[in-house]
């Protein structure tokens, strides 16, 4: 930007605003930009009779209140000393709710009732274009809007990342999510799963579009790919913060074979101290039908109930110990031949 031009424009603008008449001691550059094609805006050219009265200073000069308080001079007689808060503010008095006790009660200024003039139509907020040009202002305006509410962020959260010692057949479990986007629209990637070292891993990855539908809840839709099984699903779900601070999530899945599954999960963070936090957690899987090759029976498939006690060394990094109880139900239990049970969990909750 040309500084000279800026200055010249500024000077021209101020002359246009007719400040000079009201500004004692003001020296205004006399030169006008020789080649400024832009006409001076009509708006700012008109004298603003108002400005002179907008300066309260001269009235104070005679006897500033602090002087009066010090006994150096007399404050204007009409001014009462400041007392405690008025019991009946004038705007209330004006509505007949109480009787004004104000010693200023001259029904002027802020004591007057409000009129009902119509609001003016809203113009485009582009007045600065007249001074700096639309070309200079447009990108600044776009940046202003983007920087005030339109920014995007990322969070990667591993709520569960743990070892489950089982005397030689140690297992592991993970559950996490990442999001990228703005306040309302986000891309969400979720993953969860478990396994035993040296044998199978079962798990999944979901890629979802997430949209805020209220202050607390998001609806989500996308796809899920299983790990360790060649299975894909369409996903639709809702997640958010329920009353009493429960984090809850409910999701439905339709596989590429048409099988319908569902999952409900939730947890609660109970602060014991500022850094020691107990997280009870539950996850239930359901199925509308039996899917033999995935060892899923109809009805309630399996459940995981856990309690994990973490210590937040940092908000972002909290080692934990916990107990996890897992069990399959009904037909699933028969298909899997596994009674489940409780295991100790050692892990870390981490995010960035």
């Amino acid at each position, binding site marked *: 930007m040309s500084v000279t031009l800026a200055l010249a424009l500024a000077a021209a603008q101020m002359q246009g605003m007719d400040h000079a008449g009201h*500004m004692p001691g003001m020296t205004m550059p006399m030169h006008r930009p020789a080649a400024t094609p832009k006409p001076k805006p009509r708006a700012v050219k008109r004298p603003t009779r108002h400005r002179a009265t907008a300066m309260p200073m001269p009235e104070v000069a005679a006897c*500033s209140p602090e002087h009066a308080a010090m006994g150096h001079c007399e404050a204007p007689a009409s001014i009462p000393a400041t007392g405690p808060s008025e019991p*009946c503010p004038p705007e209330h008095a004006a509505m007949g709710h109480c009787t004004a006790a104000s010693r200023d009660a001259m029904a*002027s*200024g*802020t004591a007057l009732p409000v009129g009902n003039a119509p609001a003016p139509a809203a113009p485009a907020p582009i007045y600065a274009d007249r001074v700096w040009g639309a070309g200079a202002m447009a990108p600044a305006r776009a940046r202003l809007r983007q920087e005030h509410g339109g920014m995007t962020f990322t969070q990667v959260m591993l709520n569960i990342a743990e070892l489950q010692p089982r005397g030689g057949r140690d297992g592991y479990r993970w559950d996490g999510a990442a999001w990228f986007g703005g*306040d309302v629209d986000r891309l969400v990637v979720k993953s969860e799963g478990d396994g035993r070292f040296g044998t199978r891993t079962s798990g999944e990855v979901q890629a979802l579009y997430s949209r805020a539908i209220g202050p607390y809840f998001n609806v989500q839709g996308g796809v899920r790919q299983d790990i360790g099984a060649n299975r894909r699903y369409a996903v639709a779900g809702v997640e958010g913060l329920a009353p009493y601070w429960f984090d809850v999530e409910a999701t439905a899945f339709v596989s590429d074979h048409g099988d319908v599954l569902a999952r409900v999960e939730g947890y609660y963070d109970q602060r*014991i101290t500022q850094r020691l936090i107990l997280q009870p957690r539950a996850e239930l899987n359901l199925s509308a039908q039996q899917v033999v090759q995935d060892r899923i029976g109809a009805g309630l498939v399996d459940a995981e109930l856990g309690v994990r006690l973490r210590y937040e060394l940092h*908000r972002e990094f909290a080692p934990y110990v916990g107990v996890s109880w897992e069990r399959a139900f009904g037909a699933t239990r028969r298909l899997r031949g596994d009674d489940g049970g409780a295991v100790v969990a050692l892990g870390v909750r981490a995010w960035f």
Partner: protein
Amino acid sequence: MTSDHDTAARFGRRDLLRAGGVLAASACAPTWAQSGSAGIAARPEVSGDDIHLRIAHQMMTIDGRRRHAIGINGSVPAPLIRLREGQTVRLHVENALDEESSIHWHGLLVPFHMDGVPGVSFPGIAPRSTFTYQFPVKQAGTYWYHSHSGLQEQMGLYGPIVIDPATPDAAAPAREHVILLSDHSQLHPHTIFRKLKQQGGYFNYQKQTLAGLLAGRDQPAGERRAWGKMRMDPADIADVTAATYTYLVNGHGPRDQWTGLFAPGERVRLRLVNASAMTTFNVRLPGLAMTVVAADGLALRPVTVDELQIAVAETYDVIVTPDDDRAYALVAESVDRSGMALATLAPRVGMRTAAPPLRPRPLATMKDMGMGAMAMGGGEATPAHDMTDHDMAGHQMGGHAAAGHEMGAMNHSMRDFANAPEVKRSPTVQTIAPMPVDRTGEPGQGLADVGHRVLTYRDLVAAARNPDVRAPDRALRIHLTGNMERYMWAFDGEKLNEVTAPFAFLENERVRVTLVNDTMMGHPIHLHGHYFELVTGHGEHAPRKHTVQVQPGGTVTFDLTADAVGDWAFHCHMLYHMHAGMMQVVTVRPRGEGAA
């Protein structure tokens, strides 16, 4: 001036602290901000008709630790700009950063295109370029200036402005100190903002806990359940806390303990400026009464108090008279009492004071939630008139009186849009105050029961008659809305990036504006280019302000004369609230000019 680097090299950190971090910390501080300052009257930093300011990265030392900052002319806080009413000043601002910058003159009535808000008043100051601001100085008093670009303000780009009256005030105190309060973090401001977006309560280490419940602290179990059901956290008093902030006086931490000098028995004017990004301060000088003589730069009828709350971007001038030959502490506690800024007034350099302990942090009440006069768990004084007229602004608006008189049938839903027809139904709106009340007669969160006199807005009375005493032409209601869980903030539920139309005014139109705080957090609302008169029962001596704190669940009403044609920024001065979207543009157009 000894370079900071040299000083740091000669002493270990422990030595620095012992010898008075004063020396090291002062090395990069401007004269007025130097500890042991005899006062600003002795030596203004920058003044005259042509003032040169250079914005650049630098290091600063706080409590013996070196921190990265952005400063002006090599100093953080930026130099004191001392002006005289009636002069025309040219401020040549060089941006030596690799990003855009800007300076906004907070509270100064300048032509709109000199106001310094990129995208509203001008295009901004491009990297490695110089911009010259020029404007007539039309007022006197205490003001400040800061960057309006990105989050640079949090990194140190702020400084005080003192304007001397055109006619020298012979009886003014001979001694005066600028007390510039601010908050500094080692975290980059973008990191702070990201953490807040990821976890709204990230910086709050004073939440309610099970251990606290068992020990009988904070809310009892039943009340916790009731609040939990509403997903409201009563311990959410400040978003960013001492967990990351060090609170500063004139750029000095509590251990540096900035010291201002006085002679026992003399009157000392303290020009208080809250230049924080996010911190509401409660200011007191134990053992000294403060006589408040100006707010936001303009003279008041003096009112004497023991403590005052200063919201972000407000200024107060107070006069103290320390009689004894001893050091007095100046304590500025953050509103959540997680930390404090500490300074000393002393007759001699080297005298220190002990920091008083932090008082217990307050908990939000039903009233803070906008439950108004129905509040039960409050403990805060309720002005009697609130009981019968909690929805005054509704009456004025005509079509919105439903909530007014039907106390029995009141809908206590915390998110009933019938209580706020102006508000857009969006995820930005977590709650709508069902019964917001005018809280200008209250001293601020946690100050109702401190056992001494605390300033309220209703105590403020303008010394001079208001320049415009016409009745307002119309009323306008603006809701302050937010969502702590998603860290979204907006006016009327619309973030700036979503806003389609500005708040429009006609030139010289006088409008009664009511701000309704639908959130559980105080918001210091600032309108650029104008003063407005608070409707607090003082007729034509209404206090005139450029920034007003709207208490949680409360309302503030002011009369505005839109006398400055142009486009103006209007926003919450909590930096991260503004950044999250709590900002809009106010347009003032000549009558008959059409919608352009």
